[in-house]
């Protein structure tokens, strides 16, 4: 009803020189399309495009500046580290520490450990005798393991490191795992005994 009334009103106005509703709509559409074409093809879109381009250029410049800044930061952090090392090396405390560490602590500690080599050699010569099957087995295994990790072993037999590897991976791992599991179970048992005070009567 309201649409009819509007048409009637238009018709009445038309009589007074106002163009009909459809014509006005058509004109409005044409104007809107022109405006739209202006927006899309030229005018504003071009301005926006230019602005975006400028923004991109600026962003690129800023990225380059940031990269340069990051490089500078990296150089600075490296210099700070190097400076810290140099400064710490200059102090008397550091020099005294170096002297005592290099001149006393290191040689004495190393000498203590090095004694093992001569004692092991002397002990092996005196005590490592083939007296039983078990002792023979142990000696053969020890010799294979030692030869397998030295240059001489490879010179004697190419496959010596592989035999050593097998000895370490299979019998050795099995034995060591058994020792570890046994020790863990024994520790658990002892903890439970202490916890429940089992055997404390006998001690008393």
């Amino acid at each position, binding site marked *: 009803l309201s649409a009819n009334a509007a048409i009637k009103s238009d018709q009445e106005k038309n009589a007074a020189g106002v163009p009909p509703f459809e014509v006005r709509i058509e004109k409005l559409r044409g104007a809107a399309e022109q405006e739209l074409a202006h927006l899309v093809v030229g005018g504003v879109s071009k301005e926006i495009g230019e602005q975006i381009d400028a923004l991109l250029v600026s962003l690129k410049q800023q990225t380059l500046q940031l990269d340069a800044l990051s490089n500078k930061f990296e150089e600075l952090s490296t210099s700070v580290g190097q400076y810290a090392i140099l400064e710490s090396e200059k102090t008397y405390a550091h020099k005294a520490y170096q002297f005592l560490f290099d001149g006393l602590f290191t040689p004495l500690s190393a000498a203590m450990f090095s004694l093992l080599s001569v004692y092991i050699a002397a002990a*092996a010569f005196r005590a490592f005798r083939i007296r039983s099957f078990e002792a023979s087995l142990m000696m053969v295994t020890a010799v294979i393991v030692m030869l397998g990790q030295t240059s001489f072993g490879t010179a004697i037999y190419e496959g010596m490191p592989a035999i050593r590897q097998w000895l370490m991976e299979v019998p050795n791992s099995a034995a060591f795992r058994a020792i570890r599991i046994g020790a863990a179970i024994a520790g658990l048992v002892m903890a439970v005994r202490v916890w429940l005070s089992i055997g404390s009567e006998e001690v008393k």
Partner: protein
Amino acid sequence: MNRRFIYIFVILAVSAPLLLKFTMKPARMVSAERSFKVIEELPAVQGKIVLIGMDIGPSVKAETVPQVEVILEHLMRRRIPFAVFSLLVESKKFLDDIPQRIAKRLMAEDPSQKWQYGKDWVNLGYQPFANLFFEGLSKSDDIVAFLKKDTFGTSLSNISIFQGVKKLNDISLVLEVSGSAVIGSYIQFLQKTDYRPPIIHGCTAITVPEAYIYLDSGQIVGLLEGLSGAAWYSELLRYKFPQRAVDTALLTNTALGIGQFVVMALILFGNILHFLSRKRLA
């Protein structure tokens, strides 16, 4: 035989190759090859770091320092950043000296390249309370905030190799070198529910049998077995970088090999004497 002669034999056998700089090709070590392969396949990316625990003292220097040297050299050649630390207070000097020594050697080999503190490695110094330290590191959402500073007091946030390092997941590999059984703490505590960094273990020859159980179970991905492991790793580096000079690992391993050969010869000689004396008594 007078034991003084045995001592002289051993001293001569060990010191002669060192004085004459005589080297022999080391025996092949499969576990060292596995370690080499792990580092060779490690990606060198920003935001990932390798953690190196140098739990070594002067007493085990001869065996463990060559292990650290070859691994650090490999990491430096591959430009993989790493952080060194120690659970032992007496390791401080090794933490300071070894990376610098390797960097100097590499720069002498190729003067066009540069390796610098802060850019290629960081020294985190002595870290007390092993288990608590590892637990804190594993649970931390910001490792830089947890560790705070390097051994010289420089804030880690100012050190470039820590850029992007946030959690345990950003630790791409852990290397632990020690003369004792401290590896257990690393295996037990350095892990989260969703991530456990691969661990390479370097040990003295005396702890090799124990270390093998962790290698066999997959809890460690590589093992350097005493000096022999370091020597074979050094040989692998020589294959890859032919310009590389002979290092201490090869030299000391040769001396050790000759020393062991003398021990074997003495055992054999001792048994011959024992057999002859038994025969005489019979």
